């Protein structure tokens, strides 16, 4: 049964229900639009409820409240429309406030001046109707409602509601119109309500989708950041980013171009492009004829190309062949500088949503940072490698230098040693040279007077023969001394000049025996046992007989002189490994170690009347035979001289 009270309560109940629904949504979404919609419906519903509560006693108050609540929904809807745009549209906001104030004034006037509900309601409902119709148009315009059904329902609901409010003046004059009018009001409200509910659901769904998208974007960014952080290899990074973009946008082709420090452009990464196309792109890049790319780069913003035929590129044909349609060029930025371009290419004409573009831009920025990092890392790696190489080289150099220094040090040491030796030799030879010059001069000068003395002594001896024996002995002494002096002179002379040896094949044992015989003949040996151990197997070899004779004589005389109280003299000759070794061993007084060192120095002697030249001469002669002389001695036990001469010189 449909009477007025029932109709009004159903209408009010429905409106409050819609209000509750919208409020719940508001709590969920915190959208001001929904809040104001909910408020509108609250006023809407309360307006109906107040109608039910009117009695004769509270008539004026309730009529006033009823009128205010009748106009406030429009104000709320205007506020809602103003909040649909971001930022909120001020004109609708003002309109909403005006509506609110207007509602109060009109209601006041209607209630307290006209004193008749019906008459008071006429202007109120008229304004309300106009407001609703305006709302209907602007709501649909601003609310971005995609679904046509809810769009139509909302528009229809609001518009018809507005129109229905305009019918108020006809309610009283036409009796049958009142129930129809009320019913229409309820129906229109329901239509509006349903439309709104559908819209709210849609909005919520969209919001959820948006959230999902944002989540997806975030996850993609997160993925990329993690992948990118796992490696600093540029190729790997670009590969993983490219795959993510493909996954996210669902395009077929992706390509990355990087600007080098020298402004040249490199085609560093691509996916889904034919080899032929890449080749032609690379060719163009190599030539540096890239007006199209330069244009994009200079714009510093995302560039979407939907129709390639309008673009000024030489690759027109290739692009057509490659089926390149919608292309998004995303700048890769690092520190506000464009360092490359990411091209996202679809084979079909495709719209890219703002969310996609936003994600691509942020990806571009992320890629920029990553590429910069990678480049820095590569630079660092190169520097590091260089450094390592340099360190290695330096270490090697240092090592070599150290080795060289050590080598040089030892060489210097050796050289110093040699120098010292040479110096010593030089001093020695210098001494010898001086001696030589002096000796050469003196010898002649001395030999002449010696000759005079000798010949005179001879004369005297021949004259005084058979007379005083003492005189004869004295003369003989003179002769001996002359002989000694003459020998000294000969020694000096021998050392004084660069003597040469005249080697001939000789038997060394024969020479030794010869010397021994000569010594025995001169009766120089007293209380001395002479032993010989001569190796018969020694073949004749090249020696200067006279000089070697002198050597052996010298050594034997030295040995004999070392044993004034008698002893043993052993002379050995041996052949050891193609070397002739002659040993002369005595059991004499021996030579002290410090003297032994200097024994071969010229003029060094510990013998009374010795020239200190004998052993020097021995050494020189043996040296000329490519041999060497060694000496070992123990004080009080004796001395051994060893001569070593090679068989073949």
């Amino acid at each position, binding site marked *: 049964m449909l009477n007025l009270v029932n109709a009004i309560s159903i209408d009010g109940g429905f409106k409050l229900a819609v209000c509750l629904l919208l409020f719940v949504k508001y709590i969920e979404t915190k959208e001001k639009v929904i809040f104001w919609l909910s408020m509108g419906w609250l006023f809407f519903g309360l307006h109906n409820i107040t109608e039910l509560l009117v009695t004769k006693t509270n008539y004026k108050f309730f009529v006033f409240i009823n009128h205010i609540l009748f106009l406030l929904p429009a104000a709320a809807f205007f506020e809602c429309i103003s909040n649909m745009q971001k930022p909120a549209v001020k004109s609708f906001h003002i309109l909403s406030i005006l509506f609110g104030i207007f509602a109060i004034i009109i209601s006041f006037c209607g209630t307290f001046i006209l004193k008749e509900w019906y008459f008071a309601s006429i202007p109120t409902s008229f304004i309300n109707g106009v407001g609703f119709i305006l709302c209907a148009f602007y709501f649909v315009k601003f609310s971005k409602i995609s679904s046509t059904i809810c769009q139509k329902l909302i528009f229809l609901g609001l518009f018809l509601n507005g129109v229905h409010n305009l019918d108020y003046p006809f309610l009283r004059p036409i009796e049958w119109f009142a129930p129809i009018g009320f019913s229409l009001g309820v129906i229109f409200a329901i239509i509006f309500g349903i439309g709104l509910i559908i819209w709210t659901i849609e909005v919520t769904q969209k919001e959820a989708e948006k959230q999902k998208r944002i989540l997806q974007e975030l996850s993609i960014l997160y993925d990329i950041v993690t992948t990118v952080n796992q490696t600093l290899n540029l190729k790997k990074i670009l590969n993983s980013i490219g795959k993510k973009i493909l996954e996210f946008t669902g395009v077929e082709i992706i390509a990355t171009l990087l600007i080098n420090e020298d402004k040249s452009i490199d085609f560093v990464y691509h996916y889904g492009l034919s080899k032929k196309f890449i080749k032609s792109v690379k060719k163009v890049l190599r030539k540096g004829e890239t007006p199209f790319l330069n244009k994009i780069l200079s714009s510093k913003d995302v560039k979407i190309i939907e129709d390639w035929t309008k673009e000024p590129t030489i690759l027109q044909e290739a692009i057509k062949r490659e089926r390149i349609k919608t292309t998004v060029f995303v700048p890769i930025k690092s520190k506000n500088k464009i360092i490359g371009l990411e091209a996202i290419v679809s084979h079909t004409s495709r719209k890219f949503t703002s969310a996609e573009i936003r994600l691509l831009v942020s990806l571009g920025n992320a890629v920029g940072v990553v590429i910069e990092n990678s480049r820095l890392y590569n630079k660092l790696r190169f520097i590091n490698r260089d450094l390592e190489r340099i360190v290695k080289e330096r270490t090697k150099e240092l090592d070599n230098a150290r080795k060289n220094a050590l080598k040089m040090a030892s060489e210097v040491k050796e050289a110093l040693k040699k120098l010292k030796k040479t110096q010593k030799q030089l001093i020695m030879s210098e001494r010898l040279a001086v001696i030589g010059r002096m000796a050469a001069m003196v*010898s*002649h000068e001395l*030999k*002449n*007077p*010696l*000759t*005079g*003395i*000798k*010949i*005179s002594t*001879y*004369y005297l001896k*021949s004259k005084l023969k058979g007379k005083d024996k003492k005189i004869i002995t004295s003369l003989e002494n003179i002769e001996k001394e*002359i002989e000694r002096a*003459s020998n000294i002179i*000969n020694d000096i*002379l021998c050392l004084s000049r660069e003597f040469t040896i*005249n080697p001939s094949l000789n038997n060394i044992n024969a020479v030794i025996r010869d010397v021994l015989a000569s010594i025995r003949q001169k009766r120089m040996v007293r209380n001395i046992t002479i032993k010989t151990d001569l190796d018969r197997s020694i073949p004749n070899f090249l020696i200067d007989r006279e000089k070697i004779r002198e050597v052996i004589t010298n050594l034997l005389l030295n040995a004999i002189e070392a044993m004034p109280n008698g002893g043993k003299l052993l002379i050995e000759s041996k052949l050891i490994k193609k070397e002739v070794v002659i040993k002369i061993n005595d059991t004499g007084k021996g030579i002290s170690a410090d003297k032994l060192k200097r024994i071969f120095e010229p003029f060094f002697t510990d013998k009374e009347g010795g020239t200190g030249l004998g052993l020097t001469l021995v050494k020189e002669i043996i040296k000329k035979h490519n041999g060497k002389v060694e000496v070992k001695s123990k004080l009080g036990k004796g001395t051994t001289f060893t001569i070593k001469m090679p068989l073949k010189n």
Partner: protein
Amino acid sequence: MEYFIKDSIIDISKQYVLLGIKEGISTKNETNFTKKRKSTSKYKKIRILIIDDEAITRETLATILIERGYEVITANDGYEAIENTQHNTCIDFAIVDIKLPGMNGIETFKILKKRFPKIKGIMITAYSLNSFIQNALDSGALTCIFKPFDVDSIISIIEDMYEKEEKN
């Protein structure tokens, strides 16, 4: 040193004067001084020429040889030797010091050899160098004897030589 040597030489020369040698040292101004002594030995007319700038050696050797019966001509150097022998038709033997003032002993002996082709001789020297021996032999001398020499060795050379000659 030089002074000392001169002194000693003067002393020796005095001794020689005592021994009957009139001539002392020859100085640069005292050139062309010759001595001839008749030999009393069994070897007759063996004429020996002694050339040495050492006066004591020369004169003492001369004295010894003269006492042994040789005829001796002495000279201080090569030029003097040539001058002192210019009247002689024959010189049998020469004892020549290699180092002489002016012309050396070897050259002198060569010149003498030209004048007296039969001349025999020995070189004496204070320089005991093998090359001297070779040079001496090359010039036609019998040998080279180093100073201080044994008078006996010289005498034996001369005697050996003339014994052989006489035998021949």
